[in-house]
């Protein structure tokens, strides 16, 4: 598919020189972007490159500090999402934006419920939703189902349906496939094709290069908040794209193992672990080893971490630490047994945002080992400085730190407990390149010290580049185990349950 398929390249939207800062940190540096009617325009870049921020500016969630947005040649400035919607711009946000207590139909039509005689026409809302769902081939979704009872993927689909239902001329989608299995991705492909035919412009963010090449006409690459390039997808190879995105060859991105790092005894072992979310999990991690858990979103990786850490439970099977069977019923017991868990949801589960760096860093010590807390806390400044934390001092509230620095505080908090096994769930999510490297280096240092590391990541390059072994999950079960350094397709194939060569090359 090439860009000249779309013959009359009417430019619908032109964003130019967009600037945005958070807390004095500039995250967008004069970004330009234009969207043409009937095109799929991919937006790619590393985590934290500013893709979501750009989309949110377009959606009226944030306001740009500088630059202009032109819609049909008219300068616009959206102060409220409603204005964007009214102007024909709809958005699938990266975070879920659904009300769990409301039904699918109510969520889809939220904010613009159909009315008859000034009253909400619930029947029409349901039939319209039903029609929309049927139109999209989603017959298994019921308009009257409560969103709370849907799976993550189901919820993601509702999000997409909601955005489509706006009859918008511009639809931006922020990682819409992140939670989807292959079949649903297929479905999305079909939807996007239909939308293109109608002349809708689609701004599409995804980390999956395959989708970029499958779908897009043009691609804009962001790096560290700055525009790198906008090119026709047909004119670029995936290697080139990655180089533009990362700014250097990927191989040098992941630090090498420290000399002398060796896999020692088995530190952590899960035998046939299972509960309501996962089943038949067998897993071992040795001292000095990095094992990655890969899989699609919702495949149960986080659940394993939670069950291991006593947040949830394994109702079946056994967990062994250093060869001894343990029952961990609470995070407290887990910590006492030498475990640490860096959670995937940094703001929701990792940090107490209104508290200081110091308070966050010593929280686990205070909570679990109060008697040794003060003594243990003395190590913290050293740990923070070795992580190269940038802050205005240890009394600064962590909500004022950048994402990467926040992540360093989380890491420091766990390192202060001197864990024997550390579980890192999406340790680099939303942090910048420099901070990522710091995290990778730290992981190498820890494994050199004999710490067993279980890493969960949705970013395959990271999984492949860092792990000694990769355990791939699918639908809550172990789909297979791969050595580190395999190619992405092999991992994806296991994760989705399809053969890699079934699809075209990226």
């Amino acid at each position, binding site marked *: 598919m090439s860009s000249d398929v779309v013959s009359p390249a009417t430019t619908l939207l032109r964003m130019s020189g967009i600037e945005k800062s958070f807390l004095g940190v500039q995250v967008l540096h004069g970004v330009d972007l234009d969207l043409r009617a009937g095109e799929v325009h991919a937006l790619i870049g590393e985590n934290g490159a500013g893709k979501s921020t750009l989309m949110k500016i377009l959606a009226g969630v944030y306001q740009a500090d500088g630059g202009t947005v032109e819609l049909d040649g008219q300068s616009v400035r959206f*102060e*409220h999402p409603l204005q964007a919607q009214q102007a024909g711009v709809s958005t699938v946000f990266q975070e879920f934006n659904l009300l769990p207590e409301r039904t699918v139909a109510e969520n889809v039509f939220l904010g613009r419920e159909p009315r008859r005689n000034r009253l909400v026409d619930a029947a029409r809302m349901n039939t319209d939703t039903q029609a929309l769902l049927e139109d999209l081939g989603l017959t298994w979704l019921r308009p009257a189902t409560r969103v709370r009872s849907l799976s993550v993927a189901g919820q993601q689909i509702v999000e997409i349906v909601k955005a489509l239902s706006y009859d918008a001329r511009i639809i931006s989608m922020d990682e819409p496939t992140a939670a989807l299995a292959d079949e649903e991705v297929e479905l999305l492909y079909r939807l996007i094709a239909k939308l293109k035919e109608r002349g809708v412009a689609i701004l599409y963010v995804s980390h999956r290069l395959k989708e970029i090449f499958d779908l897009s006409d043009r691609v804009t690459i962001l790096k560290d908040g700055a525009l790198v390039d906008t090119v026709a997808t047909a004119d670029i190879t995936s290697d080139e794209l990655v180089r533009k995105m990362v700014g250097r060859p990927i191989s040098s991105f992941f630090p090498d193992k420290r000399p002398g790092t060796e896999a020692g005894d088995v530190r952590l072992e899960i035998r046939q672990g299972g509960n309501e979310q996962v089943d038949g999990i067998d897993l071992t991690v040795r001292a000095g080893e990095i094992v990655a858990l890969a899989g699609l979103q919702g495949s149960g990786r986080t659940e394993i971490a939670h069950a291991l850490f006593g947040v949830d439970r394994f109702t079946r099977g056994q967990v062994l630490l250093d060869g001894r069977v343990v029952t961990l019923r609470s995070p407290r017991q887990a910590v006492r047994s030498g475990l640490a868990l860096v959670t995937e949801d940094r703001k929701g*589960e990792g940090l107490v945002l209104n*508290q200081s760096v110091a308070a966050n860093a010593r929280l686990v010590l205070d909570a679990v080992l109060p008697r040794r807390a003060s003594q243990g806390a003395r190590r913290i400044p050293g740990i923070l400085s070795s992580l190269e934390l940038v802050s205005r001092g240890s009394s600064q509230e962590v909500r004022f730190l950048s994402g990467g620095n926040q992540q360093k505080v989380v890491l420091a908090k766990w390192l202060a407990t001197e864990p024997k096994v550390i579980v890192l769930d999406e340790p680099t999510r939303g942090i910048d390149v420099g901070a990522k490297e710091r995290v990778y280096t730290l992981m190498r240092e820890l494994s050199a010290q004999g710490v067993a590391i279980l890493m969960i990541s949705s970013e395959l390059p990271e999984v492949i580049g860092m792990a000694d072994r990769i355990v791939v999950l699918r639908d809550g079960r172990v789909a297979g185990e791969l050595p580190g350094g395999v190619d992405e397709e092999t991992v994806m194939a296991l994760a989705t349950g399809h053969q890699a060569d079934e699809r075209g090359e990226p």
Partner: protein
Amino acid sequence: MAFLKQAAPLMILAIGQYFVIVSGEFDLSVGSLVGAQVVIAAALIDGEEGRTVPVILLMLGFGILVGLVNGLITTLLKVQSFITTLGMMLVLYGAIRLWTGGAPTGALSEAFRQPGRGGIDMAVVRQLPWALMILAGIVIVAVAVMRSSYGRTLMATGDNERAAAFAGVRVWRVRTLAFIASSVMATLAAILIGGYAGVTAQVGQGLEFTAITAVVLGGVVLGGGKGSVVAAMAGALTLEALFVLFNQLSLPSTIRPAVQGVIIIAAVAYAARERARPRHHQEVPSQQQPNEA
């Protein structure tokens, strides 16, 4: 001195309420509890000096029990603390009157009245009230507690319960202890109030709202995780000073609630603005802005 002596009970209540609020909860039962404790003291002591100490110990035990029940119902049964403590407020109010037949009976002993009423005679200030020394003791303990591991975990729990739980905090225990602290503080306040003014039927009524207002006035955020115990006390002191000021200005007493209402709304609105400012970017702009598009 006299002013501080008068303010001491409210400050102590504010400290107790602070523990609960900073952990993200409410305690509406403190007013009823103060009333109940004074009535219990009068009924059980019944004027006999010898019973003073045992009865005070019993009161503390009762206070701990009330806090424990509040805490466990809130944390284990997952009833919102607003409802738990509202229920406790009704139960205490009714049970105490049921027990005493509607009006307080008995009498307090002289010894019981000393902490609230008496003091050490001194040269310069004439008298150093016991109440002030008790307050000072409580403040020192409260500040120390907030600096201890427990205090930090309490703060963390109020800020982000989930993150605290992931860090190994036993949330139910931390919160229950906060409720117990609140009830114990209410008990101590009851000892001072009963000592200060004796038994009356109305004692304690409405103190829960005054205490919550005081804490919020001190900049502590309802919902938890923000504000210091010293600020909460300062809020109580400010509120008490406001009442004295009203009196000094001979403001007609009927109009005082209105002025108080305006002041607390203004103070909290101002604090909300201040808080919103540094992180204003994180929020979607308020929809009141004019449409520029």
